[in-house]
């Protein structure tokens, strides 16, 4: 699946997007954030306060307990400040 990062999550991770293939057992958005945080220091920094990070699957906002099975594109970003 494709991951996208925005705003300070993007800056901390150090990339705008990437393809990933998470191992079996990574079932939800919050599982995925915990798995990403274990990758290296940059990811750990980006996801250290996972409770403030928002997620979207295929262009729709989702909660941390949302399943990721079948997702084409998952985005992680801070709370929005548009308007």
């Amino acid at each position, binding site marked *: 699946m494709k991951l*996208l990062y*925005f*705003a*300070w999550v993007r800056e901390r991770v150090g990339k705008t997007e990437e393809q990933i293939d998470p191992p079996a057992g990574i079932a939800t958005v919050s599982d995925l954030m915990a798995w990403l945080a274990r990758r290296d220091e940059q990811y750990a920094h980006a996801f250290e306060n996972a409770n403030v990070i928002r997620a*979207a699957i295929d*262009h*729709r*906002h989702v909660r941390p307990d949302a399943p990721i099975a079948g997702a084409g594109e998952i*985005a992680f*970003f*801070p*709370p*929005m*400040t*548009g*308007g």
Partner: protein
Amino acid sequence: MTTLIRLQHEPFDVAAEAARIARGRTDIGALVTFTGICRADEDGEIITALTLEHYPGMAEAEITRHVEEVCARWPLLGVTVVHRYGRILPGEVIVLVATASSHREAAFAAASFLMDYLKTRAPFWKRVQTRTGTSWVDAKAIDEAAIERWAGKPPEREAAK
């Protein structure tokens, strides 16, 4: 019912966008426009520029969902949302929401609803540039609280007069 949703970097003419909604029609009795403008200060600090990052694809989809929701809630005759992204200077327009109806209550309510949701649900992030550096704007609790007033509210089509 005509809707127009546009994301763009370029500045645009607010008056022309508003006039477009009512052009050639005689059923519109109320046209409400909200214009969001880049201020030159944020929390007392002087801002030299604002940069709006957005999520292409989702931003359009999310705004479309909220426009569909206001059209279901209120008897609207037209809705326009134009939101800019990229570098924006103080004094420039960031966003326009225009709503048209036969009577003012629906137009006011729909414009207010759309702005509350744009602030907290549309995937845009503001970064401000000051004389000492740049920083991401923090989401405000007051903006998040603003959308709670719309929660669970039934459609108000009957309250159009």
